[in-house]
């Protein structure tokens, strides 16, 4: 099967999966006790039965379940995710406003974790009993053991209170004025700590995985062949061994992506990063159902896209993988 056919097939499955996610989300939230009418009435400071009935009528809550479901799914197909009564804004608009901040945080921390983790893993595998190898083992134990809300707070104490090098939170400083590069620098300055925090767990995971994968590959016969050909050590390591060792890394990175998205929620809260995580937390607390469902939909969408990209990357790395 050619690459384009595979991609087309994967996109088709991805769309079906998204519809499944929509139906599941909608059903789960519908069967939870209480509805929007109760929340709105609660915010109004209480309301009598006729007012609640009026609200129900306005939001279409009295119609049969399948009608409500159909209206929601067909709305999503037109990129209309409903209306947030809490923010008084269409949900799509609300999410598109916050999504870039989350994607920036998630992708920058993942790229950092993958690149640095792979590099550390390769260096560790080069000398399995050396100092880098020890560091990787230590780092992975620490990274796995330390929850992000704790390591994030430690970083704030260290680099905001004791050594005031980084801002405590937020994404930009409104008092900073200047051209594009000044703004970019300000953004990166704010991004640094949350990125490091979110990357730390995955740095631990990827460096350990890269070390194990490289150690396995370095024992392979084709590595001996590469050495016997007289290739310099760096070519043996970074070309012949690494390309074979990348497979498991890419697979795990793809599978972990949904966990990274949920990790981002916590990190955004700790660092007041104005992304989807903060929005999700606020809308859950406010029982803003359309927004919650919208966020779930968007994060599923991102995870599915990343999974398709993972498959394509794996196929490009290893010619033996044939999608069946």
């Amino acid at each position, binding site marked *: 099967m050619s690459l384009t056919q595979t991609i087309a097939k994967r996109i088709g499955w991805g769309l079906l999966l998204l519809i499944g996610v929509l139906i599941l989300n909608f059903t789960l939230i519908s069967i939870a006790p209480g509805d929007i009418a109760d929340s709105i009435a609660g915010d109004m400071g209480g309301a009598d039965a006729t007012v609640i009935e009026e609200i129900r009528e306005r939001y279409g809550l009295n119609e049969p379940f399948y009608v409500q479901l159909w209206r929601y799914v067909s709305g999503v197909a037109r990129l209309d995710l409903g209306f947030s009564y809490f923010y008084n804004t269409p949900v799509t608009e609300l999410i598109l406003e916050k999504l870039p901040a989350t994607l920036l945080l998630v992708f920058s921390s993942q790229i950092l974790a993958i690149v640095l983790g792979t590099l550390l893993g390769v260096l560790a595998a080069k000398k399995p009993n050396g100092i880098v190898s020890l560091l990787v083992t230590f780092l992975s134990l620490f990274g796995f053991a330390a929850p992000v809300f704790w390591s994030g707070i430690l970083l704030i104490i260290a680099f905001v209170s004791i050594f005031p090098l980084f801002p405590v939170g937020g994404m930009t400083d409104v008092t900073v004025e200047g051209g594009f590069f000044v703004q970019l620098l300000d953004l990166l300055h704010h991004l640094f700590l949350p990125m490091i925090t979110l990357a730390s767990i995955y740095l631990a995971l990827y460096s350990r995985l890269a070390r194990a994968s490289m150690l396995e590959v370095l024992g392979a016969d084709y590595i*001996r062949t590469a050495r*016997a050909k*007289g290739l310099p*050590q760096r070519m043996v390591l970074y070309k012949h061994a690494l390309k*074979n060792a990348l497979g498991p890394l890419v697979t795990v990175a793809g599978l972990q992506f949904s966990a990274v998205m949920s990790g981002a929620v916590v990190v955004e809260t700790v660092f007041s990063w104005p992304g989807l995580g903060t929005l999700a937390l606020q809308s859950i607390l406010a029982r803003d159902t359309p927004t919650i469902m919208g966020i779930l939909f968007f994060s599923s969408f991102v995870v599915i896209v990343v999974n398709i990209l993972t498959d394509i990357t794996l196929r490009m790395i290893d*010619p033996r993988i044939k999608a069946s």
Partner: protein
Amino acid sequence: MPTDATQPLLSVKDLVVDFKTRAGNARVLDHVSLELSAGKILGIVGESGCGKSMTALSIMGLVPNPPGKITSGSISLDGKELTGLDEETLCDIRGSEIGMIFQEPMTSLNPVFTVGEQIAESVRVHENASAQAAMSRAVEMLKAVDIPEPDIRARAYPHQLSGGMRQRVMIAMALACRPRLLIADEPTTALDATVQAQIFDLLQELQQETGTAIVLITHDMGAIAELADDVAVMYAGRIVEKGPVSDVLSRPCHPYTQGLITCVPHLVPDPPLQREALREIPGMVPALTNLGSGCAFEPRCEKAFAKCKTAKPELIQIADSQLGACWAPGSDNT
């Protein structure tokens, strides 16, 4: 560099290689000496674990260190000493002056690069050739090892080729930079019998065309008889017999060599009434960590006597150019 007619291309002298293991020090090569003249084929035979492959890896400078270490001895190629060279110099020699092919063509090629790329790479590294020139050399080499449609096959990945094809690719790769010495470490062990013969024919043909000297490591006494000029028989890290193939095979002096020769099954066109049972050498190769003071082959030897238990026989001249390491050399049982 012109080769001195009297000086062998490859000369290994008193090579000792030790491995540190949990059970103690294992002497995997014990005073191994070999010579190979330009354009000749030297066969090395022996059971698994006797040190054949380790001899090859030592020549390539690829002894895994740790745990292995060349303790003493010298290896010289065309008069140039190879032991003690730094990694960078060794990298320049490997692949360009000495090529090597391995036992497992299935796993010896990198699965994620095309075979053309894997051949061309070595040309790029050693000859500073352009990518295009290196690739056309790769296609040329694939043609030389009789791969049909070489320009198409150059773009194939190893998993798209059969075992015999892959071994041809390995040979093409090893010879791409026209080395003066080729080490073939059991090149046919993993292949079908018919393909084995093809690979041996190919090696012989290429050897005659290019004049590359070959160290042929094998279990196959038939291949030795057909291809090699000289043969060295190894047992437990030592050479127990060596000399011209015709002499060693017709008048083997060491009981181990005699055993190896009688182990070869014969195809009998008309089955005789009483078929002879296939012979074997009883016992196992001893552990290298606790070799006694006597001959290592003594526990398995039919002719052993008291002296064999206490003293190691040295490799001494038996006939004109035939050397053997046995207290009771003879060729009486063939």
